[in-house]
């Protein structure tokens, strides 16, 4: 019996580790470095109906134990992803979670309907939390009613389970979580980045051309842990946790907080081999904790 195996709606995971959307492209670059079939799943870069160039540069800025980014959902568009990216990924034995983004309900629905028919797409991740685009994205993720309605609309057309990616840039993330659950979401992924800014020391002007960017990396982990801890106690659907996961110990923390699986984001930029390294280390970590099956750790923090 595989001690690391995790079963989630639509997803039979060999292990609970997957690269987070936006930090792994469509896998090609990392496919040159290691066998992608080792991964639990892959969350591919957000796909929009039409291709997008994204924001002007500079798009990234380093911060204390973190980084800001404002890429702006650059991607080849639905057609490009369906014709080139997803077929290329079929050579690997790994479920794909397709991140779906848009500016209005109609294009979310269109992308979701088509992309969910791809043979290797086993789940959708509805992106209602990107802080770096002017319309859509986060506007759906900060209003419970809108989040609910969009989830319901996408659920209606999707061939595979739908996970909704939540934004931490809200007053009460539990309200949004409950709303998407009521809208029919099969799971939640959280958290997206926290909106932030960095200023140039000499000129005083924002470093990032988009002015603001999304903060990620080890700096955001405590915020993510707190939010997973809270949300996992008010919804019945599973959570894929993320936010600053950089080493094996962080995975244990997210599971303990209430996540059923864990995504690794920014750490892929720091160490492109981080996902296989964590997967390799997990069994001995379980031994250390005296745990047989990894899912036994899920929600440990609630059992006070």
């Amino acid at each position, binding site marked *: 019996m595989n001690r690391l195996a995790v079963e989630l709606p639509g997803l039979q995971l060999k292990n609970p580790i997957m690269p987070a959307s*936006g*930090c*792994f*492209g469509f896998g*090609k*670059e*990392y496919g*040159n*470095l290691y066998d992608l079939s080792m991964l639990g799943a892959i969350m591919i870069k957000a796909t929009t109906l039409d291709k997008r*160039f*994204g924001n002007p*540069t*500079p*798009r*990234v*800025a*380093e911060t*204390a*134990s*973190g*980084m800001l*980014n404002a*890429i702006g959902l*650059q991607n080849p568009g639905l057609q490009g992803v369906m014709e080139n990216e997803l077929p290329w990924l079929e050579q690997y034995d790994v479920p794909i979670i397709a991140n779906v983004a848009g500016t209005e309900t109609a294009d979310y629905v269109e992308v979701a309907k088509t992309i969910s028919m791809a043979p290797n797409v086993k789940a959708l991740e509805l992106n209602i939390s990107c802080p770096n685009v002017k319309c859509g994205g986060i506007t759906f993720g900060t209003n419970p009613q809108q989040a609910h309605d969009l989830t319901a609309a996408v659920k209606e057309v999707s061939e595979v389970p739908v996970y909704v990616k939540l934004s931490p840039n809200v007053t009460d993330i539990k309200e949004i979580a409950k709303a998407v659950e009521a809208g029919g979401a099969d799971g939640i992924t959280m958290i997206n980045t926290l909106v932030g800014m960095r200023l140039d020391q000499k000129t005083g002007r924002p470093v990032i051309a988009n002015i603001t960017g999304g903060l990620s*990396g*080890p700096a955001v982990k405590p915020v993510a842990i707190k939010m997973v801890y809270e949300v996992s106690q008010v919804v019945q659907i599973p959570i894929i946790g993320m936010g600053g996961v*950089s080493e094996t110990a962080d995975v244990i923390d997210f599971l303990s907080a209430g996540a059923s699986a864990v995504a690794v984001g*920014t750490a*892929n*930029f*720091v*160490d*492109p*081999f981080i996902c296989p390294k964590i997967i390799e280390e997990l069994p001995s970590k379980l031994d250390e904790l005296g745990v047989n099956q990894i899912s036994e750790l899920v929600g440990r923090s609630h059992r006070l």
Partner: protein
Amino acid sequence: MIIQDRMRVTGQREIAKNIFEMKLTGKLVGEINSPGQFVHIRVSDSFEPLLRRPISIASIDHQANEMTIIYRAEGRGTQLLSMKKEGDEVDVLGPLGNGFPVGETSPGETAVLIGGGIGVPPLYELSKQLTAKGVTCIHVLGYQTADVSFYEEEFIRLGETYIATVDGTKGSAGFVTDVMEKIGDGFTTYYSCGPMPMLNAVQTAYTGKRGFLSFEQRMGCGIGACFACVCETTDKTDKEYIKVCSDGPVFPAGVVSI
């Protein structure tokens, strides 16, 4: 192939004000295939600073399994790197990107190599490889001031070398383009690395000539996954954008919209 290697520092010295020359040994050296490729260095084993630092390769010694990098200790990351001592180990990812095409200039032909500031280092290995195959290299090196200039002697050993400093404290006063006017156009190809405005000026001055430019952009992953370092192309028919890290950093002149 891109590998992650814990390379050992075999030398580190300050060769000009805040400019460091560092020598590293490890199996990664065997993977380097062209001048102008770069490495992505993790300067700390902690998460502070978080991201790697992209640094160009100045010289390769396959026999000694050693490479030389030259960098400016400007921010916190490169300052930490400058404190590494002989015997220390450094986490290096590379080699990354596509370097200068040495094959574009034939033996007996002349190439002009134009570098600006911390863009000068990759031209050194390029010149070594070009001159080794019988290409005559003319070097035009621009620096802000004399105290941040470096490798003049090394370049002179390989061929005709002109230095320009903005304040005139070394060589001729002014920019590399002022020197370029003097050397005329009796050459086959040009290769250049430096800040964007310099690359633009070089490209404009040498319109019609075959040239190759190495770009610098703020990077995240260094391998083409994060889309931080994209630039638009001038001719959008083939590709609308390029990624400096993995499609470049070297591109034929005219390809990238400056």
